[in-house]
C-alpha cells in the first residue's frame, strides 16, 4: 500500500455521536486517500463532518459520546484504529501533526512558546534540552517569525493571532511529520494573514514533501493549492475529484451551488448566488438524498426524496453521489 504513493487511506469511515436526543451520524461511509507529498482538500459547510473526519484520523474523538463505528484509517500501511493508546501517541505529533482553527486558544498560556515546542521535540526525538531549544528557534525562523531567538522566550499572549498560528505550525512541523492535518487553519485570521499562512504551508510542503489534509469551507483556497478535493455535505462525501476538473465541471448540484456562490473577478452587478435553506442537523437528516430539499434539480424528484445515492466512481475517474449527474445512473438502479 505504501508503494503506490498513497500515505493515508480512509475506507468506509463512520463516526456517530450517542447523545441524549439520539444518535447523530456525523460521518457516514467516508472514503478517500491522500497521496504522498500532495495536498488533499476536504470542503464543506460547518457541521458537515469534515472536522470530525480529521479528528478521527488523530483518534481525538471524545468517547463518550463519540465513537468510530466502522471503517479503516490506514496510514502508511497500518490501520490507526487498531493501534494501542501508546502506539497512537507515538504517531501523534511525530508522524501526523495537526493545526487547529483557533490560534488564540491553541497555545498554553502558562508556558513560553519555546517551552511548548521543546516539550514536543524532546518527547518524539529524544534530544537534549539545549539542542531542542536550538531546533525550536530554528523552527520559528522557518515559519517566518522575525527575531526567533527572542520570540522563543515569549508567552503566547505577547503574540498576534497570525504569529500564534505560525507558532502552531512550527510546533506541528518540528518533528517533520509525514502528514499535516490543517483544520481550517486560516478561518480565524485576517485575509492578508490567511494568504501568508497558506503560502507558508505550500513552501514547507515543497521543502519536506509532507502531505497536507486541508480542511476548509473556502473553495477559493482549494483552487490554488490542492491536488484532490472531496466535497462533503451532511456527513457524506458528495463529490470526489481532482481539483481542476472539479472547478471546470462540477458534477454535484451542491458543488455547483458552492462554486456559483464564490465571488469572481469581473463579476459585476447582481447579487451573489446563495444555496437556499440551511445544512440539516445530524439528528434530523432528511430521507433520500440529504441535499434534495435545497437542490434546484432534485427537490421535486420522487427518487431523490426516497433513495439516497451512494458515492459512485464514474467512467471518467471522478466520483459523485447524485442521480442526475451525467453517467451516474446504472441499469439496475431503482426507478421511480
Amino acid at each position, binding site marked *: 500500500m505504501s508503494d503506490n504513493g498513497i500515505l493515508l487511506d480512509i475506507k468506509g469511515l463512520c463516526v456517530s455521536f450517542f447523545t441524549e436526543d439520539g444518535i447523530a451520524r456525523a460521518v457516514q461511509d467516508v472514503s478517500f486517500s491522500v497521496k504522498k507529498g500532495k495536498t488533499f482538500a476536504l470542503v464543506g459547510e460547518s457541521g458537515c463532518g469534515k472536522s470530525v473526519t480529521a479528528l478521527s484520523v488523530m483518534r481525538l474523538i471524545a468517547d463518550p459520546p463519540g465513537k468510530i463505528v466502522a471503517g479503516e484509517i490506514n496510514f502508511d500501511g497500518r490501520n490507526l484504529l487498531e493501534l494501542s493508546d501508546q502506539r497512537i501517541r507515538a504517531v501523534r505529533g511525530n508522524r501526523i501533526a495537526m493545526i487547529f482553527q483557533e490560534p488564540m486558544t491553541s497555545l498554553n498560556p502558562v508556558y513560553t512558546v519555546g517551552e511548548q515546542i521543546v516539550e514536543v521535540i524532546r518527547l518524539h526525538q529524544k534530544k537534549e534540552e539545549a539542542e531542542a531549544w536550538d531546533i525550536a528557534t530554528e523552527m520559528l525562523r522557518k515559519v517566518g517569525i522575525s527575531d526567533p531567538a527572542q520570540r522563543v522566550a515569549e508567552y503566547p499572549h505577547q503574540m498576534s493571532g497570525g504569529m500564534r498560528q505560525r507558532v502552531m505550525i512550527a*510546533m506541528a512541523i518540528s518533528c517533520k511529520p509525514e502528514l499535516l492535518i490543517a483544520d481550517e487553519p486560516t478561518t480565524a485570521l485576517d485575509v492578508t494573514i490567511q494568504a501568508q499562512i497558506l503560502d507558508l504551508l505550500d513552501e514547507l510542503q515543497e521543502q519536506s514533501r509532507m502531505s497536507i489534509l486541508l480542511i476548509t469551507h473556502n473553495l477559493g483556497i482549494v483552487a490554488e493549492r490542492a491536488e484532490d478535493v472531496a466535497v462533503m455535505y451532511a456527513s457524506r462525501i458528495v463529490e470526489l475529484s481532482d481539483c481542476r476538473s472539479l472547478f471546470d465541471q462540477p458534477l454535484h448540484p451542491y458543488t455547483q451551488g458552492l462554486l456559483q456562490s464564490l465571488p469572481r473577478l469581473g463579476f459585476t452587478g447582481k447579487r451573489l448566488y446563495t444555496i437556499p435553506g440551511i445544512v440539516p442537523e445530524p439528528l434530523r437528516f432528511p430521507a433520500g438524498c440529504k441535499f434534495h430539499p435545497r437542490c434546484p434539480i432534485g427537490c421535486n424528484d420522487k427518487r431523490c426524496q426516497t433513495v439516497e445515492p451512494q458515492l459512485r466512481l464514474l467512467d471518467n475517474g471522478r466520483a459523485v453521489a447524485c442521480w442526475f449527474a451525467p453517467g451516474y445512473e446504472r441499469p439496475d438502479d431503482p426507478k421511480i
Partner: protein
Amino acid sequence: MVENKQQKTWGTSYGEMVWKEFAKSKFTLCWLGFIILLFLLAIFAPFLANDKPFVIRIAGQLHWPIFKALTASDYSILLAAIVALIQFLLVLRNRRCVDPSIRAGVLWRQITISVFIVLVGIILLFIFIPRRLDATDYKSMVASGKATGAVFAPVPYGFGRTDLKVREQPPNRQHWLGTDDVGSDVLCRLIHGSRISLSVGFVAVGISSIIGIIIGAILGYSGGKTDFLGMRLVEIMMAVPVFFLIITIVAFFPRSLFNIMLIIGLTTWTDDARFVRAEFFKLRRQDFVQAAVSLGLPLRSILFRHMLPNAIAPVLVNATFGIAGAIFIEAALSFLGFGVAPPTPSWGQILSLGVSTTGRFLWWLTLFPGLAIFFTVLAYNLVGETLRDAIDPRLRESV
C-alpha cells in the same frame, strides 16, 4: 549561539503578571507584609521570647544558655527557613541570570538539593540534639550578683514557665500584656502560639488542597459516570457540618497538633475538589489541551503540566481563605478545650482562659489573642481577595 542567548529577555510570565496586578494594591501589600512579619515571629519565636539569656557570664565563664535550650524542632524550623530563603533568592537570581533553555533543569536541581539538605539536616538534628531541661533560674542569678553580662530576649519569659506569684495580672511594665492563670507571660505565649496557628493553617490547607486537586482532577478529566458518582459523594461530604464533625473526631483521638491538622485537612477539601473539577471540565474542551493530545503528549504531562497550572488559580485563592479558616477552626477548638494540650500555647487556648476559674473576666486574656486571630484572619482574607481580583481580569485578557 551563546551570545545570542544572553541577549534574550524572558517574556513576562503569568505569575509575574499576577504579581504586578497584585502589587498595585498597596493596602494589601501592607497586609502581606503583616503575614511575613508573623512568619518571622513564628520562626524566631525562641529568640524573641525566652527566659534563658543569649549569653551570660557565670564565675568568669561565658555561657550560651539559649542555644543549648533550643530543641531539635526549633533548629529544624530555623534550618528550613534559611534554606527556603536561599532557594527563593536563587529563583529570583535565576530569572535574571540563567538562560531559559536550561532553567527548568537548574531549578529542579536546586530544589532537590534544598529538600535533601533540609531532610538530612532535620534527621541529624533530631539524632544529635538531646532533649535538655535547663531549670536554672538565670534571672535570680543576675539579681543576686552570681552572674553578670546577661543579654536576655526582648520578652524575657519562657512559654512553659509558671510563676504563681504573678498570676492573673493585668498588663504592667514587667508583663506588657499581662499574665494568665498560672502566671505565664501572655505576650510570650502569643509569640509562641503564632507557630501553632500558622502551622495549623498551612499544613491543614496543604493536605486539603492536595486531596481536593487529585479528586477534582480525576472527576473533571474523566467525566461521565465517575464524575457523577464522585460529585454526589462530594456533595454528601459538603452537607455534613464540618465543625461538628471535627469536634466529634477530635473527642475520640488524642489531643495532638498533628491530629488537628490532619482532621481539618481531611474535612475541608470539598471546595478545592469542586473548583478543580470545574476548571478541568472547562479545560478539557480547550484547544490547547486538544492540541497537546494531538501532539502525542502523555496523559501525565497533559494533566499536570498543561491542565493543572491553568486550573490552580482558584485553588490558590481558596487556600488563602482556607488558611484563615483553619486558624479560626483551631482557635475555636482550643477555646472549647479540644485543641492542643497545655502547656503548648495556642491563641484560642489563651482566649479560653479569659473567664477564670474564679469567675472574673480577665479582659487582657481575651482581647490580645482575639486581636491576633482577628488580624491574621483578616490579613489572609484580604490577600486572598486581592489575589482573586489579580487573577481574574488576566485570565479573561490573555487566554
